[in-house]
């Protein structure tokens, strides 16, 4: 007997939650407990009184499972609102990465050239290395990192995705 895999699609979810102890464990644990996927998760409080946090989760699953994920998140007591950015019309998503590349001579020049194409900024430099700061969609960062890997990638740090709906209305 073999275990079957199902078709899945990527969704960016934006949650408004009460900023209280254990909230992150509650959300992350729900995903593991029910077998849902987390591609990335970001969290920070966003109101002057620090009462509310926005959590952005990138997940993937079959459409039925995405609906379940939203319903399950929505019934957690400290969750105020869940928005499926992917399903709710146009939205902006960004991720930031720091990419450390080492190399000399032609490699160094090529790294700078590529960084320019990707609008990455140099935020640290030594004779033999750079750290680039790049923002963009997950795809764009993936591509940048893949190219840098050929030149002399040392390590990468990524923030995970944040996103907002386009236009003047809030979520």
């Amino acid at each position, binding site marked *: 007997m073999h275990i079957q895999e199902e078709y899945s699609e990527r969704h960016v979810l934006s949650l408004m939650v009460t900023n209280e102890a254990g909230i992150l464990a509650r959300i992350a644990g729900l995903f593991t407990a029910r077998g849902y996927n987390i591609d990335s998760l970001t969290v920070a409080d966003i109101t002057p009184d620090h009462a509310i946090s926005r959590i952005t989760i990138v997940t993937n699953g079959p459409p*039925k499972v995405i*609906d379940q994920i939203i319903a399950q998140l929505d019934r957690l*007591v400290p969750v105020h609102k869940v928005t499926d950015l992917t399903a709710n019309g146009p939205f902006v998503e960004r991720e930031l990465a720091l990419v450390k590349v080492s190399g000399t001579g032609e490699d160094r020049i090529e790294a700078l050239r590529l960084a320019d194409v990707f609008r990455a900024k140099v935020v640290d430099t030594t004779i033999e290395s750079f750290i680039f700061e790049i923002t963009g969609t997950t795809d764009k960062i993936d591509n940048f990192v893949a190219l840098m890997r050929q030149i002399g990638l040392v390590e990468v740090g990524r923030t995970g995705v944040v996103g907002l709906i386009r236009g003047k209305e809030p979520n």
Partner: protein
Amino acid sequence: MAEKSGADILVECLIDLGVEVVFGYPGGAVLPIYDALFDHPKIRHVLVRHEQGATHMAEGYARSTGKPGVVLVTSGPGATNAVTGITDALMDSIPMIVITGQVPTQLIGTDAFQEADTVGITRHCSKHNYLVKDPAKLASVVHEAFHIATTGRPGPVVIDIPKNVQIATAPYAPPLSFEHASYKPQTQADASAIATAVEMLAKAERPVFYTGGGVINSGPKASLLLRELAELTGAPVTSTLMGLGAFPASSPQWLGMLGMHGTYEANWAMNKADLIVCIGARFDDRVTGRLDAFSPNSKKIHIDIDRSSINKTVEVDLPIVADVGNALTDMITAWKTHGHKAADLSEWWARIEGWRARNSLAYPESREEIMPQEAIAELYRASKAAKDVIITTEVGQHQMWAAQHFGFEAPNKWLTSGGLGTMGYGFPAAIGAQVGNPDSLVVCVAGDASIQMNIQEMGTATQYRLPVKVLILNNEYMGMVRQWQELTYESRYSNSYSDSLPDFVKMAEAYGWTGIRIEGPQELAAGIAQMIDTPGPVIVDCRVAKLSNCFPMIPSGAAHTDMLLDPNQIAGIMSDEAKALV
């Protein structure tokens, strides 16, 4: 305002919230609370013998009275022992508050004596939980916890209180009514959805009401409304294990339970229906059988207070998020204002009667052995004279036989562990039900294996003079496990024989109970009558046929139409795909 200790604040809150009984067990981390409860004039404390017992007692109390059950246990092992009952209450949507002691705040995280991460452990098996670090916040947490446990889809809420918070002081005034910032269960149905539902119902040619525990959770009024709507439409009614009693078994519109051990007529009606109205049930795998063959030609309406239950396993045509009682009220009003009349369902009923004629709950008669089904049937007959009867069960074949052969007429009289299937639930649940219903006849239908999982609670019944009756259908097997092994593993009975059973009659005597043994069919009626008539707690060791199987049965992963009706249909082997299902 005069300040009170955290422990006193907690007790004040319980009184303000109308709590009369707490099921608990003391320990170092709850001593201040126990001191606040010492000789308390308003709150009765029932001392259990194991914390799991306390949780199931609270469940039994809650399910039979409609009030939330309250549990008080110490930190560490007290809290971990409560976890099974908390999970059980979550799965079966039982309102329960579990108060756990915790090591003092400055010791949290140091692996202190009897420290366990209670909020971490219970985070995903409770509806919500709290660690209270400030006595000034305790009152609002306790009031909020009761609100969350009892509203929306009910469930267990855990409040973890460090010992120093129980001792430190703060002012207390009962919080004024509050609106929760983020927790707002939707209780009223969308009016247009109700109108559509009623249209669909009026037009249906082969409708079925598929009801569940949500009808009971909504309160006794919902059961009356269900009866009214069923009468108005003339449609047949079936129910899950958890919903038994919401619709009277004596009604001609009653099809019996559906699902894995449901009746032939209930499962075939689901399969051939053109409209399923699911009311407070959740398309559990024990109900649906093979999903792609589940009720293939019906439109489906699903009424549930929990949006996440809708479209979870079965996709429905019309979701209605609402409290069942409210939705039923609205549907009845809409039905009447549109002047709908019950459609002519005679053709549909004729087919149902055809399935009913298979008499799927029939069982072989025996003069030598007590058939376990017959023991339940006798209990049903004998208990009819009692003013009020509450039946609890353990988990296994006896549970299914009780569901099949005992006819329930009213809600809150049938207490069983459905979602989690917890052996060890039934006996403490009976004790809790008896605490809440001192004048009722409370009978726990048990199996020889299950009863041993919380048998220590016999002492609790003795101590509080609770006249519970425990009817053990003793087949000397973990019968349900043995049945599956017979079906799936060519009768290799690996570790399912109940060896070294205690002498239950002597055990009864040891605890100051009455013990009765029933050994043959001739003794059955007299033995059960004696059990009912004997004052005080009674344990009955009823020796039943050892190898009976529970039928009908839909093997897991099979369709409703692939139901097995008798032992001759058992194959003894199964495909790996079927074996992999629970």
